[in-house]
């Protein structure tokens, strides 16, 4: 089990540290491989990749000023300034320790909060589950970067795609055109490999290659482990506060590690005595976002496990993988899959410890990663996208689906349509439809039952508040101009 786990983490480091390749893509490519391992080893592989890729994204953010993943954007500001001042190794060692601590705190909160929340979620019926899925989906579309209407459109498209196949309530075929391969619906794995793997290759191929190599400020000095430990201890409150904040933000559907990192950075700036120096290479400017972004990964698992509503695209993919492992997310998950949940939590905790080993290797190996020609990396992504899609059902039809969604993802992203709400729509679509229809059948068509229970009323109020409040907030932020220093 340890070998695939560590290999997965090294793969996560490689993808996360390669500018332009995302943590989502790393998880999308690793999921088909994980199905060929023992369930615990497979889960370890997925968990290892998802946590490691977020930290690895901070490495090019520090040395190149290019975030390896969107979650590393906030770490770019002070991390890169420290690298320019010759303190890049210190910035990354701090980053590694804080990522590991943030992950530990996040997983600790997950272990504590999730079972309690599951007890509460037992009170949910069709009506509450319907609103919860709508709320999760709306939030993911509304908080995704860029145009709100495009986010909602992507969510709608994802839900429409989820209707392909046999209708589970009536047994009627929908959009299958007599094709047997479509009867069970669009397989989630080839769709996400296409959307997040192949589309990235199309995107990179449209750009000049190797444009970012000369800017690196790679440090040659040894890693200052003791100094980093001392600084982390000095700023322990900042680590704790940022990690808790990261976990809470990560638990909100749609608000992923990137928003958590920016939120923690902003809070650290406001509460610091050196707030005016933020952006010039301040230690808290590295500690806060890196603690928060890894904690957010654990936070995103809370609604995913308890309600089946993923917090971000990475968790959406993990959720799809869990279902294929026969772990059904929902309030009963801790009773129905008790052993798997224990394994999952143990794996998530151990991953934070192993992250220290994999991270130190990653920091040292970054120069080599950067020297690897982009053409070889992109070709390898294409080959693994094809073989990963095929290996799922030994079907070339799945490879065709992957190819179609690679094109769809590329074209949508070219028009700044976010892809995360689409994948969430694909996962949450059946939850929305089933609960709406079964709710209507059980209430004899009485729509008021969807609004009258206290939990439903709160969810509807939150939904309205989100629809009215978030666009206004976005507009105000736009008027205020860029909040991050150049």
């Amino acid at each position, binding site marked *: 089990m340890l070998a695939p786990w560590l290999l997965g983490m090294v793969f996560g480091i490689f993808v996360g540290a390669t500018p332009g390749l995302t943590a989502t893509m790393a998880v999308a490519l690793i999921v088909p*491989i994980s199905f*060929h391992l023992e369930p615990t080893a497979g889960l370890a592989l997925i968990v290892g990749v998802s946590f490691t890729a977020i930290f690895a994204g901070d490495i090019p953010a520090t040395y190149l000023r290019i975030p390896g993943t*969107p979650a590393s954007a906030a770490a770019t500001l002070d991390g890169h300034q420290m690298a320019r001042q010759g303190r890049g190794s210190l910035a990354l060692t701090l980053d590694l320790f804080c990522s590991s601590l943030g992950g530990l705190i996040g997983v600790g909160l997950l272990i504590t909060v999730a079972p309690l929340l599951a007890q509460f979620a037992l009170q949910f019926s069709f009506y509450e589950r319907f609103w919860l899925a709508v709320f999760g989906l709306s939030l993911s579309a509304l908080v995704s*970067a*860029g*145009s709100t*209407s495009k986010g*909602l*459109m992507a969510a*709608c*498209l994802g*839900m*429409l795609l989820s*209707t392909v196949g046999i*209708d589970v*309530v*009536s047994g*009627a075929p*929908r*959009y299958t*055109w007599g094709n047997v391969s479509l009867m069970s619906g669009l397989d989630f794995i080839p769709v996400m490999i296409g959307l997040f793997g192949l589309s990235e*290759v*199309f*995107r990179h*191929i*449209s*750009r000049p*290659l190797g444009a970012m190599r000369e800017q690196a400020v790679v440090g040659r000095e040894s890693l200052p482990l003791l100094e980093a430990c001392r600084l982390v201890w000095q700023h322990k409150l900042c680590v704790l506060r940022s990690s808790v904040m990261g976990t809470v933000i990560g638990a909100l559907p749609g608000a992923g590690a990137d928003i958590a990192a920016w939120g923690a950075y902003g809070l650290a700036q406001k509460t610091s005595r050196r707030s005016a120096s933020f952006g010039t290479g301040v230690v808290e400017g590295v500690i806060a976002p890196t603690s928060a972004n890894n904690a957010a990964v654990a936070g995103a698992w809370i609604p995913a496990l308890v309600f089946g509503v993923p917090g971000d695209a990475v968790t959406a993919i993990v959720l799809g993988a869990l279902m294929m492992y026969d772990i059904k997310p929902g309030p009963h998950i801790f009773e129905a899959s008790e052993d798997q949940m224990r394994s999952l939590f143990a794996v998530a905790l151990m991953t934070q410890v192993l992250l220290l080993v994999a991270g130190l290797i990653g920091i040292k190996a970054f120069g080599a990663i950067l020297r690897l020609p982009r*053409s*070889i990396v*992109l*070709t390898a992504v*294409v*080959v*693994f996208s*094809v*073989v990963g899609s*095929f*290996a799922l059902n*030994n079907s070339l039809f799945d*490879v*065709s689906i992957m*190819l179609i969604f690679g094109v769809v993802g*590329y*074209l*949508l*992203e*070219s*028009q*700044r*349509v*976010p892809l995360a709400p689409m994948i969430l729509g694909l996962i949450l679509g059946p939850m*929305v439809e089933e609960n709406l*229809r079964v709710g*209507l*059948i059980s209430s*004899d*068509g009485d729509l008021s039952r969807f609004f009258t229970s206290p939990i439903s009323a709160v969810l509807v109020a939150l939904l309205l508040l989100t629809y009215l409040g978030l666009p206004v907030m976005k507009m105000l*932020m*736009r008027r205020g101009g860029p909040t991050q220093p150049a």
Partner: protein
Amino acid sequence: MTSSRLPHDPWQRICGLGLLSAGVIAVAGVAIWFAGDIGRTGPGGGHDPGPRFFPLLLSLTLLAFGIGHAVQAALVAFLPGFGSQGIQSAQQEGVPSAQIGWRWLILLMLLVLYIFAIGWIGFSVSTWLIATGMMIGLGNRWWVAAGVALVMVVVVRVLFVILFRVQLPAGELGLPF
């Protein structure tokens, strides 16, 4: 054609929005058309909106989004500077944006050929050919590309065939590798 030039290039925005709205309207139109083939009633009788309801509702919503983007394209065309602030803020927020070029179309055609070739000459040979071709196309020397492609094929075979026991397609020619 870089994203940073988008606000100053309204025609590119109009084309982009126009293509997006045309694509969305086409998908919605197809979904509405074929929703007619779906059964009308569900097991709950009159209280179940039936299997057609949800796809139809989503298709109509998608159609509305498509029309909305077409209107936005028209406004950009006729009102100079319309929506450029939104584009700038999208760039600040780091929304990924690809440049529509032509190289991806070549890769797409290669991949379509690849899928057909897998079924005919088998996985290993077709993968070696596509990987070599792609790396040469991206600027590698032929012997480097051929060597690296060979390593990739060996790694995939060791990982999937030997370790995970996945049967990769041998193709109609029935080659032993």
